[in-house]
Protein backbone atom coordinates (compact mmCIF):
# COMPACT_ATOMS: atom_id res chain seq x y z
CA UNK A 1 0.00 0.00 0.00
CA UNK A 2 1.72 3.14 -1.23
CA UNK A 3 -0.45 6.25 -1.51
CA UNK A 4 0.80 8.45 -4.28
CA UNK A 5 1.10 12.20 -3.76
CA UNK A 6 -0.86 14.70 -5.84
CA UNK A 7 -0.35 18.15 -7.27
CA UNK A 8 -3.25 19.38 -5.11
CA UNK A 9 -1.90 18.06 -1.80
CA UNK A 10 -0.31 21.26 -0.56
CA UNK A 11 -2.96 23.90 -1.13
CA UNK A 12 -3.30 25.53 2.31
CA UNK A 13 -6.51 24.93 4.24
CA UNK A 14 -7.73 22.57 1.55
CA UNK A 15 -8.51 18.85 1.81
CA UNK A 16 -9.19 17.48 -1.64
CA UNK A 17 -11.66 14.63 -1.41
CA UNK A 18 -9.90 11.85 -3.24
CA UNK A 19 -9.47 8.13 -2.92
CA UNK A 20 -7.20 8.39 0.08
CA UNK A 21 -9.61 10.65 1.96
CA UNK A 22 -12.68 8.80 0.83
CA UNK A 23 -11.40 5.34 1.64
CA UNK A 24 -10.61 6.23 5.25
CA UNK A 25 -14.05 7.75 5.75
CA UNK A 26 -16.34 5.46 3.80
CA UNK A 27 -18.46 4.57 6.81
CA UNK A 28 -18.56 8.15 8.02
CA UNK A 29 -19.89 9.35 4.70
CA UNK A 30 -22.29 6.41 4.66
CA UNK A 31 -23.75 7.70 7.89
CA UNK A 32 -24.14 11.16 6.33
CA UNK A 33 -25.62 9.66 3.17
CA UNK A 34 -28.23 7.83 5.22
CA UNK A 35 -29.48 11.24 6.37
CA UNK A 36 -31.13 11.74 2.99
CA UNK A 37 -34.03 10.02 4.74
CA UNK A 38 -36.03 12.06 7.22
CA UNK A 39 -36.52 9.05 9.49
CA UNK A 40 -32.79 8.56 9.80
CA UNK A 41 -32.24 12.22 10.60
CA UNK A 42 -34.71 11.89 13.44
CA UNK A 43 -33.09 8.71 14.66
CA UNK A 44 -29.72 10.45 14.77
CA UNK A 45 -31.10 13.41 16.73
CA UNK A 46 -33.01 11.24 19.14
CA UNK A 47 -30.08 9.05 20.01
CA UNK A 48 -26.78 10.00 18.40
CA UNK A 49 -24.78 7.27 20.10
CA UNK A 50 -27.15 4.51 19.04
CA UNK A 51 -27.27 5.84 15.51
CA UNK A 52 -23.50 6.13 15.22
CA UNK A 53 -23.21 2.54 16.41
CA UNK A 54 -24.81 1.42 13.14
CA UNK A 55 -21.66 2.47 11.33
CA UNK A 56 -18.10 1.30 11.65
CA UNK A 57 -16.59 4.62 12.75
CA UNK A 58 -13.24 5.24 14.39
CA UNK A 59 -13.19 6.71 17.88
CA UNK A 60 -11.81 9.94 16.44
CA UNK A 61 -14.60 10.15 13.91
CA UNK A 62 -17.19 9.55 16.61
CA UNK A 63 -15.64 12.25 18.77
CA UNK A 64 -15.58 14.71 15.91
CA UNK A 65 -19.29 14.11 15.36
CA UNK A 66 -20.13 14.36 19.06
CA UNK A 67 -18.36 17.71 19.28
CA UNK A 68 -19.59 19.05 15.93
CA UNK A 69 -15.92 19.45 15.13
CA UNK A 70 -16.41 19.95 11.42
CA UNK A 71 -12.80 20.66 10.59
CA UNK A 72 -11.82 17.36 12.14
CA UNK A 73 -14.61 15.65 10.19
CA UNK A 74 -13.25 17.07 6.93
CA UNK A 75 -9.67 16.21 7.81
CA UNK A 76 -10.78 12.66 8.60
CA UNK A 77 -12.28 12.39 5.11
CA UNK A 78 -15.84 13.56 5.67
CA UNK A 79 -17.05 15.05 2.41
CA UNK A 80 -18.45 18.55 2.75
CA UNK A 81 -21.56 17.81 0.65
CA UNK A 82 -22.26 14.77 2.80
CA UNK A 83 -21.48 16.55 6.04
CA UNK A 84 -24.04 19.18 5.06
CA UNK A 85 -26.76 16.52 5.33
CA UNK A 86 -26.07 16.40 9.04
CA UNK A 87 -25.56 20.12 9.58
CA UNK A 88 -28.24 21.89 7.50
CA UNK A 89 -31.33 20.14 8.91
CA UNK A 90 -30.20 21.26 12.37
CA UNK A 91 -30.06 24.84 11.21
CA UNK A 92 -26.28 24.85 10.77
CA UNK A 93 -25.79 26.32 7.31
CA UNK A 94 -22.74 25.72 5.15
CA UNK A 95 -21.72 29.25 6.12
CA UNK A 96 -21.85 28.34 9.81
CA UNK A 97 -19.66 25.37 9.01
CA UNK A 98 -17.31 27.57 7.00
CA UNK A 99 -17.07 30.02 9.89
CA UNK A 100 -16.32 27.22 12.32
CA UNK A 101 -13.48 25.95 10.11
CA UNK A 102 -11.77 29.28 10.73
CA UNK A 103 -12.99 29.90 14.21
CA UNK A 104 -14.75 33.13 13.23
CA UNK A 105 -18.36 34.29 13.50
CA UNK A 106 -20.84 33.71 10.69
CA UNK A 107 -21.06 37.44 10.17
CA UNK A 108 -17.32 37.63 9.77
CA UNK A 109 -17.45 34.72 7.34
CA UNK A 110 -20.09 36.50 5.27
CA UNK A 111 -18.03 39.68 5.36
CA UNK A 112 -15.08 37.69 4.10
CA UNK A 113 -17.13 36.51 1.14
CA UNK A 114 -18.15 40.11 0.41
CA UNK A 115 -14.56 41.25 0.71
CA UNK A 116 -13.37 38.52 -1.62
CA UNK A 117 -15.89 39.65 -4.25
CA UNK A 118 -15.22 43.37 -3.66
CA UNK A 119 -15.19 45.45 -6.82
CA UNK A 120 -16.57 42.77 -9.12
CA UNK A 121 -18.88 45.18 -10.95
CA UNK A 122 -15.99 47.42 -11.88
CA UNK A 123 -14.10 44.41 -13.12
CA UNK A 124 -17.08 43.34 -15.25
CA UNK A 125 -17.36 46.84 -16.68
CA UNK A 126 -13.71 46.80 -17.56
CA UNK A 127 -14.09 43.59 -19.58
CA UNK A 128 -17.40 44.83 -20.99
CA UNK A 129 -20.61 43.29 -22.24
CA UNK A 130 -21.93 42.01 -18.91
CA UNK A 131 -25.50 42.58 -17.85
CA UNK A 132 -25.74 45.27 -15.23
CA UNK A 133 -29.44 45.99 -14.63
Amino acid at each position, binding site marked *: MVWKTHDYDNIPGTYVFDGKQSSQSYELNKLFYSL*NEAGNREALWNDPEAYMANFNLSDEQRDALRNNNF*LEVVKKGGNIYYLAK*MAIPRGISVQHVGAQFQDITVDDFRQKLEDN*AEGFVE*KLNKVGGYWNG
Partner: protein
Amino acid sequence: MAKIIGGITSSHIPAVGNAITQGLTQEPYWKRFFDGYQPAVKWLEEAKPDVIIVVYNDHGLNFFLDKIPTFAIGCADKYINADEGWGLNAVGDFEGDQAFSWHLAESLVEQEFDICTCQEMKVDHGFVNPMRVLLEKEKDWGVKVVPFAVNTVQHPVPSGKRCLKIGEALGKAIESYPEDLRVVIFGTGGMSHQLQGERAGLINVDFDIETMESVISEPEKFASLSNAEIIEQAGTEGIETIMWLVMRGALQPDAKLIHKHYHAPISNTGAGVLVLENQ
Protein backbone atom coordinates in the same frame (compact mmCIF):
# COMPACT_ATOMS: atom_id res chain seq x y z
CA MET B 1 -32.94 15.70 -37.32
CA ALA B 2 -32.45 16.98 -33.78
CA LYS B 3 -30.93 20.43 -33.54
CA ILE B 4 -28.99 22.13 -30.76
CA ILE B 5 -30.45 25.60 -30.37
CA GLY B 6 -27.97 26.76 -27.79
CA GLY B 7 -26.69 26.43 -24.26
CA ILE B 8 -26.90 28.17 -20.93
CA THR B 9 -24.52 28.10 -17.99
CA SER B 10 -25.68 28.62 -14.45
CA SER B 11 -24.59 27.96 -10.93
CA HIS B 12 -26.84 25.56 -9.02
CA ILE B 13 -26.47 26.93 -5.49
CA PRO B 14 -28.89 25.31 -3.01
CA ALA B 15 -29.77 28.65 -1.43
CA VAL B 16 -31.18 29.74 -4.79
CA GLY B 17 -33.91 27.13 -4.49
CA ASN B 18 -34.83 28.38 -1.03
CA ALA B 19 -34.84 32.00 -2.20
CA ILE B 20 -37.35 31.09 -4.90
CA THR B 21 -39.50 29.04 -2.52
CA GLN B 22 -39.51 31.84 0.04
CA GLY B 23 -40.24 34.54 -2.55
CA LEU B 24 -37.02 36.43 -1.85
CA THR B 25 -35.89 36.97 -5.42
CA GLN B 26 -36.56 40.71 -5.27
CA GLU B 27 -34.97 41.21 -1.86
CA PRO B 28 -31.84 43.37 -1.95
CA TYR B 29 -29.48 40.43 -1.40
CA TRP B 30 -30.92 38.43 -4.31
CA LYS B 31 -32.28 41.04 -6.72
CA ARG B 32 -29.23 41.64 -8.91
CA PHE B 33 -28.50 37.93 -9.07
CA PHE B 34 -32.02 36.98 -10.21
CA ASP B 35 -32.63 39.99 -12.44
CA GLY B 36 -29.55 39.10 -14.42
CA TYR B 37 -31.18 35.77 -15.28
CA GLN B 38 -34.13 37.40 -17.02
CA PRO B 39 -32.58 37.67 -20.49
CA ALA B 40 -31.71 33.96 -20.21
CA VAL B 41 -35.26 33.10 -19.12
CA LYS B 42 -36.62 35.05 -22.07
CA TRP B 43 -34.20 33.51 -24.56
CA LEU B 44 -35.12 30.03 -23.35
CA GLU B 45 -38.81 30.78 -23.68
CA GLU B 46 -38.28 31.77 -27.29
CA ALA B 47 -35.97 28.84 -27.96
CA LYS B 48 -38.91 26.50 -27.23
CA PRO B 49 -36.78 23.42 -26.57
CA ASP B 50 -38.35 19.97 -26.71
CA VAL B 51 -35.56 18.57 -24.57
CA ILE B 52 -33.11 20.13 -22.13
CA ILE B 53 -29.93 18.23 -21.33
CA VAL B 54 -28.79 19.28 -17.88
CA VAL B 55 -25.11 18.74 -17.16
CA TYR B 56 -24.69 18.73 -13.40
CA ASN B 57 -23.09 16.86 -10.57
CA ASP B 58 -24.84 14.81 -7.97
CA HIS B 59 -24.01 15.78 -4.36
CA GLY B 60 -24.78 12.43 -2.74
CA LEU B 61 -28.40 11.76 -3.62
CA ASN B 62 -28.43 9.40 -6.59
CA PHE B 63 -24.86 8.26 -6.22
CA PHE B 64 -23.14 7.11 -3.09
CA LEU B 65 -19.42 6.48 -2.84
CA ASP B 66 -19.91 2.77 -3.50
CA LYS B 67 -20.26 3.59 -7.20
CA ILE B 68 -19.07 6.89 -8.60
CA PRO B 69 -19.20 7.01 -12.39
CA THR B 70 -17.17 9.68 -14.16
CA PHE B 71 -20.04 10.44 -16.54
CA ALA B 72 -23.61 9.17 -16.21
CA ILE B 73 -26.63 9.73 -18.40
CA GLY B 74 -30.27 9.37 -17.43
CA CYS B 75 -32.23 6.87 -19.55
CA ALA B 76 -35.51 6.92 -17.63
CA ASP B 77 -38.97 8.16 -18.50
CA LYS B 78 -39.20 10.06 -15.22
CA TYR B 79 -36.75 11.71 -12.82
CA ILE B 80 -37.67 12.49 -9.27
CA ASN B 81 -36.27 15.26 -7.10
CA ALA B 82 -36.01 13.54 -3.74
CA ASP B 83 -35.06 14.66 -0.24
CA GLU B 84 -31.32 15.20 -0.16
CA GLY B 85 -31.13 16.14 3.50
CA TRP B 86 -30.49 19.80 2.79
CA GLY B 87 -33.89 21.14 3.82
CA LEU B 88 -34.92 21.79 0.24
CA ASN B 89 -38.53 21.29 -0.80
CA ALA B 90 -38.84 18.71 -3.53
CA VAL B 91 -40.32 19.98 -6.76
CA GLY B 92 -42.41 18.09 -9.33
CA ASP B 93 -41.10 15.18 -11.38
CA PHE B 94 -39.27 15.66 -14.65
CA GLU B 95 -40.25 13.80 -17.79
CA GLY B 96 -37.57 11.90 -19.69
CA ASP B 97 -37.21 10.73 -23.28
CA GLN B 98 -35.90 7.18 -23.18
CA ALA B 99 -35.37 6.65 -26.90
CA PHE B 100 -33.39 9.89 -27.19
CA SER B 101 -31.37 9.14 -24.04
CA TRP B 102 -30.47 5.67 -25.25
CA HIS B 103 -29.46 7.05 -28.62
CA LEU B 104 -27.12 9.48 -26.87
CA ALA B 105 -25.70 6.67 -24.76
CA GLU B 106 -25.11 4.48 -27.80
CA SER B 107 -23.50 7.26 -29.75
CA LEU B 108 -21.23 8.24 -26.84
CA VAL B 109 -20.06 4.68 -26.30
CA GLU B 110 -19.44 4.35 -30.03
CA GLN B 111 -17.34 7.51 -29.84
CA GLU B 112 -15.33 5.89 -27.03
CA PHE B 113 -16.76 7.65 -24.01
CA ASP B 114 -17.32 5.21 -21.16
CA ILE B 115 -20.55 6.45 -19.68
CA CYS B 116 -22.78 4.93 -17.07
CA THR B 117 -26.43 4.52 -18.11
CA CYS B 118 -29.04 5.15 -15.42
CA GLN B 119 -32.58 3.87 -15.79
CA GLU B 120 -33.48 5.20 -12.38
CA MET B 121 -32.03 8.52 -11.33
CA LYS B 122 -32.95 10.89 -8.56
CA VAL B 123 -31.96 14.46 -9.33
CA ASP B 124 -30.73 16.86 -6.66
CA HIS B 125 -30.34 20.65 -6.40
CA GLY B 126 -27.54 20.54 -8.95
CA PHE B 127 -30.11 19.60 -11.56
CA VAL B 128 -33.22 21.20 -10.13
CA ASN B 129 -32.11 24.74 -9.32
CA PRO B 130 -31.04 25.70 -12.84
CA MET B 131 -34.39 24.35 -14.08
CA ARG B 132 -36.26 26.41 -11.50
CA VAL B 133 -34.35 29.63 -12.15
CA LEU B 134 -34.37 29.36 -15.91
CA LEU B 135 -37.90 28.05 -16.44
CA GLU B 136 -39.46 29.79 -13.44
CA LYS B 137 -41.58 26.74 -12.74
CA GLU B 138 -42.07 24.21 -9.98
CA LYS B 139 -43.84 21.54 -12.04
CA ASP B 140 -45.34 21.02 -15.49
CA TRP B 141 -41.99 21.91 -16.92
CA GLY B 142 -43.34 21.63 -20.44
CA VAL B 143 -40.14 20.09 -21.69
CA LYS B 144 -38.41 16.73 -21.48
CA VAL B 145 -35.03 16.40 -19.84
CA VAL B 146 -31.88 14.30 -19.96
CA PRO B 147 -29.81 14.45 -16.76
CA PHE B 148 -26.11 14.22 -17.53
CA ALA B 149 -24.07 13.77 -14.37
CA VAL B 150 -20.36 14.48 -14.10
CA ASN B 151 -18.32 13.38 -11.11
CA THR B 152 -16.89 16.56 -9.61
CA VAL B 153 -17.12 15.35 -6.02
CA GLN B 154 -14.64 12.53 -5.56
CA HIS B 155 -11.28 12.71 -7.28
CA PRO B 156 -10.16 11.51 -9.77
CA VAL B 157 -12.49 13.95 -11.53
CA PRO B 158 -12.33 14.18 -15.33
CA SER B 159 -10.15 16.94 -16.75
CA GLY B 160 -11.61 20.02 -18.37
CA LYS B 161 -10.17 18.72 -21.62
CA ARG B 162 -12.12 15.47 -21.28
CA CYS B 163 -15.29 17.42 -20.46
CA LEU B 164 -14.86 19.51 -23.59
CA LYS B 165 -14.34 16.35 -25.64
CA ILE B 166 -17.39 14.55 -24.30
CA GLY B 167 -19.31 17.74 -25.03
CA GLU B 168 -18.19 17.59 -28.65
CA ALA B 169 -19.23 13.94 -28.81
CA LEU B 170 -22.55 14.80 -27.19
CA GLY B 171 -23.11 17.43 -29.86
CA LYS B 172 -22.54 14.86 -32.59
CA ALA B 173 -24.78 12.39 -30.80
CA ILE B 174 -27.62 14.90 -30.55
CA GLU B 175 -27.37 16.01 -34.15
CA SER B 176 -27.43 12.44 -35.43
CA TYR B 177 -30.83 11.74 -33.85
CA PRO B 178 -33.53 11.39 -36.52
CA GLU B 179 -36.39 13.12 -34.72
CA ASP B 180 -36.80 16.90 -35.17
CA LEU B 181 -36.10 17.78 -31.56
CA ARG B 182 -35.06 21.24 -30.46
CA VAL B 183 -32.38 20.73 -27.83
CA VAL B 184 -30.91 23.14 -25.29
CA ILE B 185 -28.04 22.22 -23.00
CA PHE B 186 -27.44 23.57 -19.51
CA GLY B 187 -23.92 23.53 -18.11
CA THR B 188 -24.32 23.99 -14.38
CA GLY B 189 -22.21 24.42 -11.26
CA GLY B 190 -19.43 26.67 -10.06
CA MET B 191 -18.10 29.20 -10.22
CA SER B 192 -15.41 29.86 -7.64
CA HIS B 193 -16.26 28.60 -4.18
CA GLN B 194 -14.78 26.50 -1.47
CA LEU B 195 -17.00 25.10 1.25
CA GLN B 196 -14.43 23.06 3.15
CA GLY B 197 -11.27 23.57 5.18
CA GLU B 198 -9.74 26.76 6.52
CA ARG B 199 -9.78 28.21 3.01
CA ALA B 200 -13.61 28.11 2.93
CA GLY B 201 -15.10 31.37 1.73
CA LEU B 202 -12.75 31.75 -1.21
CA ILE B 203 -14.13 33.69 -4.16
CA ASN B 204 -11.96 34.56 -7.14
CA VAL B 205 -13.65 37.14 -9.32
CA ASP B 206 -10.71 37.56 -11.67
CA PHE B 207 -10.51 33.85 -12.33
CA ASP B 208 -14.27 33.59 -12.79
CA ILE B 209 -14.33 36.40 -15.37
CA GLU B 210 -11.39 34.87 -17.18
CA THR B 211 -13.20 31.53 -17.18
CA MET B 212 -16.39 33.04 -18.57
CA GLU B 213 -14.51 34.80 -21.35
CA SER B 214 -12.65 31.61 -22.14
CA VAL B 215 -15.81 29.50 -22.25
CA ILE B 216 -17.41 32.00 -24.65
CA SER B 217 -14.70 32.24 -27.25
CA GLU B 218 -11.73 30.06 -26.38
CA PRO B 219 -12.86 27.04 -24.35
CA GLU B 220 -9.59 25.20 -25.03
CA LYS B 221 -7.87 27.74 -22.79
CA PHE B 222 -9.94 26.94 -19.70
CA ALA B 223 -9.87 23.27 -20.69
CA SER B 224 -6.09 23.26 -20.69
CA LEU B 225 -5.89 23.89 -16.94
CA SER B 226 -5.24 20.93 -14.66
CA ASN B 227 -7.78 20.17 -11.99
CA ALA B 228 -5.20 21.15 -9.37
CA GLU B 229 -4.82 24.56 -11.00
CA ILE B 230 -8.59 25.05 -11.06
CA ILE B 231 -8.90 24.00 -7.42
CA GLU B 232 -6.10 26.34 -6.45
CA GLN B 233 -7.79 29.26 -8.22
CA ALA B 234 -11.50 28.48 -7.87
CA GLY B 235 -11.63 26.34 -4.74
CA THR B 236 -12.39 22.69 -4.16
CA GLU B 237 -16.04 23.12 -5.10
CA GLY B 238 -15.20 25.56 -7.90
CA ILE B 239 -13.98 22.53 -9.85
CA GLU B 240 -17.65 22.13 -10.82
CA THR B 241 -17.11 24.80 -13.45
CA ILE B 242 -15.51 22.16 -15.72
CA MET B 243 -19.06 21.03 -16.44
CA TRP B 244 -19.61 24.20 -18.45
CA LEU B 245 -17.18 22.72 -20.94
CA VAL B 246 -19.49 19.79 -21.65
CA MET B 247 -22.17 22.25 -22.76
CA ARG B 248 -19.64 24.37 -24.63
CA GLY B 249 -18.21 21.38 -26.48
CA ALA B 250 -21.63 20.45 -27.79
CA LEU B 251 -22.14 23.88 -29.35
CA GLN B 252 -20.58 25.31 -32.47
CA PRO B 253 -17.13 26.82 -31.96
CA ASP B 254 -18.52 30.16 -33.17
CA ALA B 255 -21.77 30.02 -31.20
CA LYS B 256 -23.09 33.54 -30.64
CA LEU B 257 -23.04 35.11 -27.18
CA ILE B 258 -26.54 36.28 -26.31
CA HIS B 259 -26.08 37.20 -22.68
CA LYS B 260 -23.53 37.22 -19.92
CA HIS B 261 -24.08 37.96 -16.28
CA TYR B 262 -21.99 37.58 -13.16
CA HIS B 263 -22.66 38.19 -9.50
CA ALA B 264 -20.68 37.52 -6.33
CA PRO B 265 -20.98 36.47 -3.68
CA ILE B 266 -24.26 34.68 -3.75
CA SER B 267 -24.39 32.28 -0.86
CA ASN B 268 -20.74 31.11 -0.90
CA THR B 269 -20.20 31.41 -4.59
CA GLY B 270 -19.27 33.42 -7.63
CA ALA B 271 -22.20 32.94 -9.99
CA GLY B 272 -22.03 33.28 -13.75
CA VAL B 273 -24.66 33.03 -16.46
CA LEU B 274 -23.97 32.63 -20.16
CA VAL B 275 -26.38 32.19 -23.04
CA LEU B 276 -24.81 30.95 -26.23
CA GLU B 277 -26.74 30.31 -29.44
CA ASN B 278 -25.81 28.11 -32.35
CA GLN B 279 -25.78 29.86 -35.74
